[in-house]
């Protein structure tokens, strides 16, 4: 248990988290390992976890009928996978496929949401860490959408 809390705090996403908060969320965490080709989750499934990647590589993909599977982002050590656990109706909107064997901490979404409701200070602490990730991903998506490498780039 203490070991998990140490791992959580060593992850860049939770860097500098207080003892009290890491103890609170430590109870929601478990160690997980995925092999190449495994899925952390698939589009449409319930978003029941947040993943803190410790090693390996994960591809976020969308499959469109007739167009095949398109990877729009790869994530690696130090990154977080999963945003939908925070936003109703808590469904994944893409697949997360393991490209290289991956170790991660999975945080149970029900548990995290409940603890955040019970303790708004914890909820705010999590938001402060999550919003920059969301904003970076939004900015990156905007750049991808601009298709800057096209002939008019």
């Amino acid at each position, binding site marked *: 248990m203490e070991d998990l809390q140490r791992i959580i705090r060593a992850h860049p996403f939770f860097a500098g988290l207080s003892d009290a908060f890491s103890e609170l969320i430590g109870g929601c965490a478990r160690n997980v390992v995925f092999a190449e080709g495994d899925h952390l989750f698939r589009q449409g499934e319930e978003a029941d976890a947040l993943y803190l990647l410790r090693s390996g590589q994960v*591809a976020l993909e969308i499959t469109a009928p007739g167009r*095949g*599977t*398109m*990877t*729009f*982002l*790869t994530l690696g050590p130090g990154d977080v996978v999963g945003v939908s656990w925070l936003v109703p109706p808590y469904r994944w909107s893409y697949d997360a496929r393991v*490209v290289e064997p991956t170790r991660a901490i999975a945080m149970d979404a029900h548990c995290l949401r409940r603890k955040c409701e019970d303790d708004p200070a914890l909820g705010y602490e999590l938001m402060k860490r999550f919003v920059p990730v969301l904003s*970076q991903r939004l*900015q*990156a998506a905007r*750049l*991808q959408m*601009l*298709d*800057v*490498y*096209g*002939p008019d*780039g």
Partner: protein
Amino acid sequence: MDQMAEPRMAHPLVPRVAHVRRRWRDGPDVWTLEIEDGAGSGFMPGQFNMLTVFGVGEVPISLSGDPADGNRIRHTVRAVGPVTRALARLRPGDPLGLRGPFGTGWPTDALDGRDVVIVAGGLGLAPLRPAILQLLARRDRIGRLTLVYGARSPDQILFARQQDRWGRRSDIEVAVTVDHATSPWRGYVGVVTTLIPRAVSDPANTVALVCGPEIMMRFAAAALTDAGLPETAIHLSMERNMKCAVGLCGHCQFGADFLCRDGPVFRLDRIARRLALREI
């Protein structure tokens, strides 16, 4: 003194005639021309030539070959309009007009002892390739050397085989990312700026050379300053369009500078405020 006896200086606005030796494809709509330039006198990485296709027009194109190759120069061209399409159609033996080299180069002579991060997007690797080759030729003089490259998709990666070869060397780190990919691609997907933090380990001692579409360069410059690099350590190549290449016509005026004469390579502190201006 007899005026006729003086050596004839080439007029900077009059092209000399050179010939294509070889050509090969380097990506969709992208061709590299190897040109025999008998009158060439070497170039600095980052410089460009004005290339003329007779009867069609003249355009600025960066030198993309090895500065150590002497008179055998290379240009890598993406066919986007009338002149670049005509350039891409030239065959071995065909003549073309050539003026240059022009412009400021990358500060490769001022990098001794420094870590170097090269950030390239799309065709922006073409003007950086001579700098990479020169730095690899005197590798022991610099610290960590990293190439961070972004392209639209895996099939659009410029100089893909050479990047693979560089990636297998131990004296240069190569990180390639694409904006979108389909399943066979095993590399990174995401915008090039996401790879920048990992490429910088000692920001106070790092110099960055950046070339790509202007929006990408703006975001790359922001990511580099976020990683701790001062503006004075970031160099960008501003490849907006130009005409005379010698600072006369004003076509490429960028605030107080002419991109052709004062650039295309600028230090960020000189142009940072202007980069964000819509009007210029």
